[in-house]
């Protein structure tokens, strides 16, 4: 029986002596991590045969508290490290856990090429729309017009859609969930782990301390409500007109082949 209780998951997967985490109050990473571990549990992965590869920044600590083989490398290179691990030891599950800056800015080249190769690694992308640990700078997913410490008057560039980028580059599994939609998140993590080929799971996760403060988005609760109200399930989105989807994030399993 898969474990579902938090206490059981803590015992099974966490290095409890490493806790508490470094994350700010209200951060979405902890909730997301819990849902991810429930996905691991549901997929029945072997903890001794699973390698987690972290990037840098707040999300670069998502594996630091976990009882797995973990590599936390240099900024932007998590996917390249993971590619080497997976190619040499194909029997291992290799899971990248990194942020929007790590994956789409400094590491963007590795991201698209890993998707193109369809290398059998799973990339869990925590998208909080900002560089949190360095104090709130714009990232490639910061929405146009949003504010940040390096765009105090509002960002005048367009954001990447990580899921569309991965799909166009050749990813064979693409899904999106949020720190609000935790059951969906666990499900897509489980499904990605049972899929063979490159998988992207984008997680929208709130950052009240940096993104929220700059953009007056409210506290964690209000930001979670934003995630609820600005997302549309993929099944529902298929029957909607493009104009009604403008500004919304489609969530669920978006690509699988």
């Amino acid at each position: 029986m898969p474990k579902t209780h938090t206490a059981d998951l803590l015992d099974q997967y966490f290095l409890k002596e490493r806790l508490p985490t470094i994350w700010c109050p209200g951060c979405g990473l902890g909730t997301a991590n819990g849902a991810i571990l429930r996905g691991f549990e549901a997929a029945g992965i072997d903890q001794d045969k699973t390698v987690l590869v972290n990037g840098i920044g707040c999300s670069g600590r998502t594996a630091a508290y976990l009882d797995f083989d973990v590599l936390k490398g240099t900024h932007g290179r998590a996917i390249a490290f993971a590619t080497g691990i997976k190619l040499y030891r194909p029997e291992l599950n290799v899971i990248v856990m990194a942020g929007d800056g790590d994956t789409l800015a400094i590491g963007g080249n590795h991201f698209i090429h890993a998707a193109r190769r369809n290398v059998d690694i799973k990339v869990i992308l925590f998208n909080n729309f900002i560089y949190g640990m360095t104090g709130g700078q714009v990232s490639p997913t910061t929405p146009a017009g949003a504010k940040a410490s390096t765009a105090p008057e509002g960002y005048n560039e367009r954001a990447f859609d990580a899921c569309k980028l991965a799909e166009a580059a050749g990813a064979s599994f693409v899904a999106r969930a949020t720190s609000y939609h935790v059951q969906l998140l666990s499900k897509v993590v489980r499904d990605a782990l049972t899929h063979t080929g490159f998988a992207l799971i984008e997680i929208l996760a709130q950052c009240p301390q940096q993104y929220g403060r700059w953009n007056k988005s409210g506290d964690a609760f209000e930001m979670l409500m934003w995630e609820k109200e600005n997302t549309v399930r993929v099944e529902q989105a298929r029957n909607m007109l493009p104009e009604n989807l403008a500004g919304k994030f489609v969530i669920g399993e978006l690509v699988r082949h």
Partner: protein
Amino acid sequence: MTRKLLQGNEACVEAAIAAGVRFFAGYPITPATEIAEGMARDLPKVGGIFIQMEDEIGSIAACIGASVAGAKALTASSGPGISLMLENIGFAVISETPVVIVNVMRGGPSTGLPTFPAQMDVMQARWGSHGDYPIVAFAPSSVRETYELTVKAINTAEMLRNPVFLLSDAMVGHMREAISLPEPEELELFERRRPEPDEVDFAPHRGSQDGFEIPLMARFGDGFRFHVDSNVHDDYGFPATENNPMADRLIHRLNNKVKAHADELILVDEDQLEDADIAIFAYGSSARSAMEAVEIARRRGLKVGLLKAKTLWPFPENYVEKWTRRVKAWVVPEMNLGQMVREVSLVVKGRVPVYPLNRVDGLLIEPHQILSLIETQVLSLA
């Protein structure tokens, strides 16, 4: 024993595979591409993995990942590509991950002189990544030495758990010479020391502070569930970024590893130095010119000898010290504007004159240039 006519770059491939390299990630670049091509052809035949990555940053990252997963890994490039690899070379140092980087040197800066040899990257190899870190670099001057030093570089990386450079150049990499390849059983290979499978308190960074005892290295996927971290970390690999004494201890221990093993890392050839008045310090292709210069000088009755450094880092300072006490002058020919001559001078400390001889036009230093310097300038003072 098989005799083969090989390019330096081909000898590097033969040696790497014979020494157990089973992972290569790289990116095309002149004059190193033949190494990638050879690996693409030969690695799959022995069950190894070849991948052409999207850039050199990804290439060394993939090699480091494969190494942590248990592979002997090697990558090859030239100046522009090496510049891109530098950050992750520091990661290999702090994570104590064995990896060999072959730099087939060409002229710089930037894309410089792609098809011509140079020796401009010897200081980059030592200091190019940020932070204070230990490095080892070997410099072959022939196809045979390319074979021997490739094996030595791989053994050294595995033994020290540290990145190791092979500093070849466009001349050595592309020249062809007949060499005798050793039989596989003749090669002395170092295999990474792993913890026992039942080790209960495995600490991937627990080594002796003097650097002599190198920590054991487990593989990912063997049940140890260990962490590898780019930050300053404790013996278990967990970040210790607010622990200043821990940082001090780690940085010293990492650097001590090369110091503690310097004697077994430093390789030189001492040629006709016993009675020499003038010693040449040379390495790589410049050492070939220096060998010829010594021959001609001796025929002319001049007492000239050669200290050929096959190891550049750690610098063979004891050998320079030893001969400084005996000779009247040093000559240091290099295909750069004077890099290793600084190291020679640091040891010599003004006791005898040190003459640099430099060339940066992409052409080899010729023996007559060395002789001319000796006859017109050095002899009058020595």
